[in-house]
């Protein structure tokens, strides 16, 4: 269980996240809100990539137990590397800088590629993938990482419907395996359908709780008029 206790984060001089309290247990949780509400900052703070200005985050596992998928991926997609080698870097926390991936890590990478429907592309270079295939490759790397906490920043942006369905299947698999999955999402219908818990950030005070209460029509209107 991860607890946010009155967490605030600065982005430059402004407070991007202000006094947020929430708790995330095993299963799917969403972070929602309008643009500029601090969703990405919040997620990065959970990933240990953004400092917390005040308040505290407790209950996080060790760094290699946290899987993080950045928005529109900061990974260099033109890097001259084969897909299976790319995916193997998911095991960095276990393998480290100075060893080669073991036989079992190789197999883990292969099965993750198959899981995401990329087995045939294992020896292709990353640069040849479409953006949807690349997102599946990022998911395969997360599968290899085998983290107990998985943080996803807008995982379904720039992918087609078929790819999205495949990625959602993987989210549900992670949920069934008892992992903590937290995703930043724009699509409120999707959140209502799949995510039982939501943290809604906005210009007003953040709201946290069961999705059916947090994403009620009223609060959405309130946010819109505030914007």
């Amino acid at each position, binding site marked *: 269980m991860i607890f946010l206790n009155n967490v605030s984060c600065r982005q430059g001089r402004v407070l991007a996240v202000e006094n947020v309290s929430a708790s995330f247990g095993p299963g799917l949780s969403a972070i929602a809100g309008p643009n500029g509400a601090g969703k990405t900052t919040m997620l990065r703070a959970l990933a240990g990539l953004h400092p917390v200005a005040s308040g505290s985050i407790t209950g996080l596992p060790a760094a290699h137990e946290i899987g993080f998928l950045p928005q529109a991926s900061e990974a260099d997609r033109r890097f*001259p590397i084969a897909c299976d080698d790319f995916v193997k870097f998911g095991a960095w926390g276990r393998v480290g800088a100075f060893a080669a991936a073991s036989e079992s890590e190789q197999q883990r990478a292969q099965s993750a590629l198959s899981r995401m429907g990329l087995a045939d592309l294992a020896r292709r270079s990353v640069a040849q993938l479409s953006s949807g295939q690349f997102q599946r490759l990022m998911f395969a790397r997360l599968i290899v990482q085998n983290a107990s906490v998985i943080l996803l920043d807008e995982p379904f942006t720039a992918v087609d419907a078929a790819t999205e369905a495949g990625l959602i299947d993987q989210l549900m698999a992670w949920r069934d395996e008892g992992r903590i999955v937290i995703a930043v999402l724009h699509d409120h219908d999707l959140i209502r359908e799949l995510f039982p818990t939501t943290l809604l950030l906005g210009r007003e005070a953040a709201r946290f709780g069961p999705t059916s209460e947090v994403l009620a029509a009223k609060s959405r209107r309130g946010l819109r008029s505030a914007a």
Partner: protein
Amino acid sequence: MYDLLISPFSFLFLRRALIGCLALSLIAPPLGVFLTIRRMSLTADVLQHGILPGVAIGAMFGGLSMWWMGAGGLLAGLLVALLAGVITRATDGREDSGFAGVYLLALAAGVALASRERGIDLTHLLFGSVLAVDDAALILMAAIASIGLFGLAVIWRGLVLESLDPLLLQAQGGGGMRFHAGFMVLVVLAVVGGFAALGTLMSVGLMMLPAIAARHWSRFLSGQILASVVAAVLSSGLGLLVSFHANIPAGPAILLVAGGIWLASLAIGPESSLRSRALIAAHD
């Protein structure tokens, strides 16, 4: 044919220059491949200009000793690498104008210092000379190649991940800075290793030209590195012959050959060359 290709190497000075350049061809091009992948080609430019004042100051203290000039160049190169890092951070990645400022300043300071010093032939210092590869220079180049290859092997995996996805490395507990710093030290070493034969203005040529040529020969890192080394070896051998026969400085001669290889690769190489693009267009 024999007279053209083989007999010039019966001269000891040319043989020494060849061996030195071949040693450099093993380490500089792989570093260049990483520089191009990391979009740091400009940094190499800054560094080679940056070592010039150091080399000149080294020559002031120790005369034309390769060790003094090399040590001065190494120190200046490390300082400039630090400065470049500061500029990159301060400008949020829009570093090109700051870099231009640094290398113009360094070039002016270096030329000013070197021309005050009697006995320094500015042409040799800037553009290299096969005659400059004495025993000390040869040992320096071989030592740098040996240290560089070992160092690159040590940081390899970290450097690949740090180039590919720095965020993953950071999220997995950091350490990216170590690999970046180690890499910069290796690049400075290779630039210093190149200046005796190639000249300070040309020393990154053997690093960058084979590296950008290699992009047209493979879509994978290992293939690109192999191709870059082959291109550098060819450039060194043919370039020294050109230098010998045409009586031009070694640096420009080697770089002209390397540049020719790059242009040929751009035209007909199997990857993203003009020819492969034309083939794809014809296919559509």
